C-alpha cells in the first residue's frame, strides 16, 4: 500500500502545484522539498516494510493486471532514485530561479518522481509499460521547458524516439503476454514448453524489445534524443537524463532480459551477439564522440550514452554476474554523472560558459564546485579505488567470465572506451586547472550553499560508496537473489 501512495502522492502533489499556479517562491520551495522528502521517505519505507509483497490495483484479465511490488531490483532502483531526487530538488530550486515558469517546472518535476517510482515498483510488464510511457509524457514539458527553437526541436525528437521505442517494446510485450505473462520473476515468465520449436521467433521478439526499451537507454542507433535533450535546464539533464529516465530504460531492459525472457535461453545465441555488439559499439561510439565535442554539457551527454551502454553490455552477458555488474554500474554511474552535470550546470549558472575551451582557470574561480567535479570525474574514469573502477572491473570480469566471443568484444570495448573516457574528462580537467595561460586574478564564484550543498553531498556520497562498495554490492546481489 505504501508503494501505491509513494507513486501517487508526488503525482497528485505535482498537479496540485500546477493547478494552484502559485507565484510565491517561498511557498513553492517548501512545497517541493516537503513533497520530495516525504515521497522519498515513503518509498524507502515501502521498500523496507513491503519487500517481497505485492498489491493488485486493478485486474483486467487473468494475466493482465496493474500490480505493484517491491522485489530486489525494484527496491534498489527505487532507493537510488529517492536519494538522488531529494538532493537534486535543492539544486533545482536554486538553478531554476532564472529560468522562468518555475511552477510549471516543479509541477512536472514532482510528477516525474512518482512516475519513476511507478516504474520501479511495477510488478509485471504491463504496469511497467504504462508507467514507462507516462514517464515520457511527464518529462516532455521539462525537456521543452525553455520553449525556444532548440527546446521544441529537442522535445519533438524526444517524443518521436520514445514512441518508436514504445512501439517496439509493445510488440515484445504482446509476445510475452501471449506466451506466459504474469509477474516478474528472475529467470523469466515465458512458458518454454509452448515456445519449443519457435525459439528464433522468441529471439526476434527479444531483440525488438531490447532495442525498444533500449531507446530510453540511448543505445545506438536510438541515442539521438539524449543529445538534443541536453538543451533542457541542468537539473533535468542531471537528474532525468543521467539518472531517472535513462536508468528507467536500463531498468526496463533488465526486467525484460532477466525477469521476462529466459536469459539462459538467450545465452550464446545470435540475439545475444546482436545486442552485445550494439551495446559495445555504443560504448565506444559515445566516448569517441564525447572526445570530439567541445560543448561541455553535450560532451557529458555523450558520456552518458557511452556509460548507459556499459550497463547494457553487462546486462547483455545473460549471466547473473553480468546483471549484478550492470546494477553496480547503474548505481555508481548515477552518483558520478549527476555530480558532473551539476558541476557543469553550476559553471553555466554562475559564468554562462558552455564550451570546454572557455573553462580556463575555472578551477580557481570555483574551487569547491570543481573539486567535486574532479573527484567524480576520476571516479567515472575508473581510477581505483573510486567506485567507477569497481563497477568496471566487475563488468570486465563478468564479460570475460562468459567464455564467449561476445565477452571478449564487450571487454575490449570497455577498455577502449575507458581510454577515451580518460581523454575526454582529463582534457576538461586540464582546461580547468592548468590551461597554460597566464593566471588571472580569480574571484570566488562558487554558487551558494543551496547549489554547493548538493554537490558536496554527492561527492561525499561518491567517496562513501567507493569505500563501502563491497557491502553495498553484497546487499544488492542478495536482494537480486544472485550469488556472486
Amino acid at each position, binding site marked *: 500500500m505504501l508503494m501505491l501512495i509513494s507513486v501517487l502522492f508526488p503525482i497528485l502533489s505535482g498537479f496540485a502545484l500546477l493547478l494552484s499556479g502559485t507565484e510565491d517562491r517561498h511557498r513553492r520551495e517548501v512545497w517541493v522539498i516537503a513533497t520530495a522528502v516525504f515521497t522519498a521517505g515513503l518509498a524507502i519505507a515501502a521498500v523496507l516494510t513491503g519487500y517481497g509483497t505485492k498489491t493488485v490495483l486493478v485486474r483486467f484479465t487473468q494475466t493482465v493486471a496493474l500490480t505493484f511490488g517491491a522485489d530486489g531490483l525494484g527496491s534498489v532502483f527505487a532507493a537510488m532514485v529517492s536519494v538522488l531526487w531529494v538532493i537534486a530538488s535543492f539544486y533545482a530550486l536554486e538553478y531554476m530561479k532564472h529560468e522562468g515558469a518555475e511552477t510549471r517546472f516543479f509541477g512536472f518535476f514532482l510528477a516525474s518522481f512518482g512516475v519513476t517510482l511507478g516504474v520501479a515498483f511495477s510488478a509485471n510488464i504491463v504496469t511497467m509499460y504504462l508507467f514507462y510511457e507516462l514517464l515520457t509524457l511527464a518529462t516532455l514539458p521539462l525537456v521543452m521547458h525553455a520553449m*525556444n*527553437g*532548440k527546446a*521544441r*526541436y*529537442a522535445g*519533438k525528437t524526444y517524443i518521436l524516439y520514445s514512441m518508436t521505442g514504445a512501439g517496439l517494446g509493445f510488440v515484445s510485450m504482446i509476445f510475452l503476454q501471449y506466451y506466459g505473462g504474469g509477474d516478474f520473476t528472475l529467470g523469466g515468465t515465458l512458458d518454454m514448453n509452448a515456445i519449443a520449436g519457435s525459439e528464433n521467433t522468441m529471439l526476434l521478439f527479444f531483440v525488438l524489445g531490447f532495442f525498444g526499451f533500449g531507446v530510453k537507454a540511448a543505445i*545506438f*542507433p536510438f541515442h*539521438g534524443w539524449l543529445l*538534443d535533450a541536453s*538543451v533542457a535546464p541542468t537539473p533535468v539533464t542531471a537528474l532525468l537524463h543521467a539518472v531517472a529516465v535513462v536508468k528507467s530504460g536500463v531498468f526496463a531492459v533488465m526486467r525484460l532480459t532477466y525477469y521476462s525472457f529466459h536469459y539462459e535461453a538467450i545465452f550464446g545465441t545470435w540475439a545475444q551477439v546482436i545486442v552485445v555488439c550494439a551495446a559495445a*559499439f555504443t560504448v565506444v*561510439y559515445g566516448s*569517441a*564522440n564525447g*572526445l*570530439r*565535442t567541445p*560543448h561541455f554539457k*553535450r560532451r557529458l551527454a555523450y558520456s552518458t550514452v557511452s556509460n548507459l551502454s556499459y550497463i547494457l553490455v553487462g546486462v547483455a552477458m545473460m549471466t547473473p554476474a553480468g546483471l549484478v555488474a550492470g546494477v553496480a554500474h547503474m548505481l555508481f554511474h548515477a552518483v558520478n554523472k549527476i555530480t558532473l552535470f551539476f558541476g557543469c550546470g553550476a559553471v553555466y549558472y554562475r559564468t554562462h560558459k558552455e564550451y570546454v575551451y572557455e573553462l580556463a582557470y575555472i578551477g580557481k574561480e570555483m574551487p569547491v564546485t570543481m573539486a567535486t567535479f574532479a573527484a567524480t570525474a*576520476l571516479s567515472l574514469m575508473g*581510477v*581505483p*579505488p573510486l567506485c567507477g*573502477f*569497481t563497477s568496471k*572491473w*566487475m563488468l*570486465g*570480469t563478468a564479460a*570475460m*567470465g562468459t567464455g564467449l566471443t561476445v565477452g571478449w568484444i564487450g*571487454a*575490449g570495448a570497455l*577498455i577502449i572506451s*575507458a*581510454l577515451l573516457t*580518460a*581523454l575526454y574528462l*582529463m582534457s576538461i580537467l*586540464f582546461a580547468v586547472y*592548468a590551461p*597554460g595561460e597566464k*593566471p588571472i586574478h580569480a574571484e570566488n564564484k562558487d554558487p551558494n550553499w543551496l547549489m554547493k550543498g548538493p554537490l558536496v553531498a554527492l561527492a561525499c556520497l561518491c567517496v562513501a560508496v567507493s*569505500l563501502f*562498495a*563491497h*557491502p553495498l554490492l*553484497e546487499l544488492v546481489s542478495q536482494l537480486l537473489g544472485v550469488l556472486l
Partner: protein
Amino acid sequence: MSQFLLLFLVFFPTVCAPVSYLIGRKSKGMRNYFVAVVTGLELAAAVLLMTSGEAAVRLDGVCGLGLGFAADGFRCLMTLIAAIGWFEATLMLREYFAHSRNRNRYYVFWLLTLTGTVGVFLSADLFTTFVFFEVMSFASWVMVIHTEKPDAIKAAETYLAVAVIGGLVTLMGIFLLYHLLGTLEINSLYHAASAVESNGALWVAGLLTLVGFAAKAGSFPLHIWLPTAHSAAPAPASAVLSGVIIKTGIFGILVLSTQVFRYDYNWGIVMLALGVITMVLGAVLAVFSIDLKRTLACSSVSQIGFILTGIAMQCLLGHHNAMAVDGTLLHIVNHASVKLILFPAAGVIYCTTHTFDLNKIRGFGKGKPLLMLVMGIPMASLAGVPGLNGYVSKTLLHESIVEYIHLVPQTAGLFTAVEWAFLFAGGLTAAYMLKLFICIFIQSPAEEAHWAGKKKYASKLSMGTLAGLVAVMPVMGLLPNKVMDGLAALGRGFMHGEAPAHAAEYFAWANLKGSLISLCIGVAVYLLIIRPFLTVRDCTGVSYPDRWPQKLDLETGLYRPLLCVILPFIGAFFARVAEGIVEGTVHLLSDLLYRGQTRNVCPPEDEEFAAYDAKPKSRVGFRYSFAYSIILMGIGLSLTLLYVLFKG
C-alpha cells in the same frame, strides 16, 4: 603488529594528506614540518617492518576483489627505499619550494603518491598492485604539472597519456590473467601458470600486462614520457620519480618474469631485447643531452635497461640465476640511491641559477668541494668505478651474462654481442657523467653568470642530508661481501633466486677487467666524440650545442601524429559512417513523407543543436501531402498483397 605496520605504511600518508592541506591553509611553516614528520614516521615504520619479519594482511571486499598486502625481504627493502626517498626529498623540498606557488596542492598529492608507491611495493596480488599503480600514476601527475609552465603541461600530457594507455592495456592483461589463471595472488601465479595449457593466451595476457609496467619503468619504446616529465617536475619530485616511482614498473615486470614466466627462455629473450635497446639508447640520449636534469633522466632510462637485462638473465639462466638475481636487486638499490642524490643536487644548483641548461650552469661547482663530493661520488658510482656500490651490481650483471656464455656455448656469439653492448652502455654512462662533471666542476663559468660571485648556495639541512646519503656509498662499495651480499639476499625469496655457491670475489682481476674496459670506452667516447663533436670552443669558453636530430624524437615523430591525427581520423570516419547510415535513413523517410513541404528546422547553429525557427510556420501543402500519403499507403497494401499471393 606487523600487520598493523603494513596497513599503517600504506594508508597513513593518505590520511595525513587532507590534514596537511588544512594545516597549510593556516600556516605554511607548520605544514612543512608536518609533512616532514609524516614522511619521517613512514621511514620509521618501514625500518620497523624490515626488522619484524614476514607478514600478510587482506582487506576483503575493498574495491571489488579485495586488497592484499604482504611483507617479505624484497618488499620491505623497496618500501624502505621509498620511505628514504620521500623523507629526503621532503627535507629538500623546503628550500627548493621557497618561492613556489600551489605548494599546498603539491603536498597533498605528494603524500598520495607515497601511498600509491608503497601500496605497489607491498601488494600481495596483482589486483592490489594495479589499484595502487593507478593511484600513484594519477597522483604523481600533479607533481609533473606542478609549475604549470607550457613545457610542464606538455610533459604532463605525455605522462598522463602514457600512464592511462599503459594502465588500461595492463588492466586488460590482468583481466586475461585472472580469466586464465583464476587467481592474481602473486605467490600462486607460478603454479597456476604452469597448469595453463594454451601458451598463446598466456603470452597475450603477459605481454598486455607488461605494457603498462614497462611504460612506467621507462623501457623502450615507451620511455618517451620519462625525459620530459623528469625535466618538468620539481627536482625533489624528479628524485622520487626516478629513484622510486619507476621502480614500481620494475616491480610489475619482476612479478611477470619471476612468477608467470619463471625460467621461460622466450620471455627472457624478449626482456633481453628490451633491456639491451633501452640501456644503449638511454645512454646515447644522455650523451647528446645538454640539460642537466634531462641527462640524469635519460641516464635513468639507460639504467632501467641494465635492470631489465638482469631480469632477462634471471629467466635465461633458470636455476643458475644467483648472480642475475643479486645483480638485479643491487642495481635497483644502487640506481635509486644515486638518483636520490643527483636530482636533489641538481635542484640545489637550480635554486641559485634557475636553470638546468649546461651552457648556463657551466662552472657552477668550481670552488665548491662539498658539492663536488656530493655529486662526484654518485656519478662515479653509476659509472662503475671500483670501490663504489655501482661497481658491485654492474659486475654481478656482467658476470651473469658471461656465465650464460659458458653455460650455453651454442649461443655464445649472440651473448658475446650482448656482453659488449653491456660494456658499451657502461662506457657511455662513464662518458656522460664525465661530461657533466667536467662541465660543472672543471670548466670556468661564463662571465655574465649572475650567480658567479655568490658564496652560499645551499642550506646546511640540504647539504647535510645529501652528504649523509653519499657517505654510505663508499662503505657499500668497499665492503661488498659484508653489506651488498646481505642486501642481495633479501631479494632471493621474491625473485626465486638460488643462493650463490660461494661469495663473489668482487675485486678479482676478471671482475675488475670488465669495469676497466667500460671506463676506457667512456674516456674514449668523451675524448673522441663529445669533445670534438658535441662541444664548441670559442673566445668566451666552451658551449654545448644541441646536436640531437629532432626527427629521431619518437614522441613528435610517431606517437603524437598517431594518437592525435591518424587514430582520431579513423575513429571519426567510422563514427560518421555509422551516423550517416542512421541519419540518411531518417532523411530519406522524412523527405518521402514531407515532400513538397518547406522545412522549418534550422541546421545546427553552433554545430551542436538543431532548432526550430523562432516563429512556427503554418503547415503548407497539407492536401498534397494527404494525397501523397494515400499513394504511399496504396503501394504498401499492394506489396502486402503481392507477398500474400506469392507466398503460397
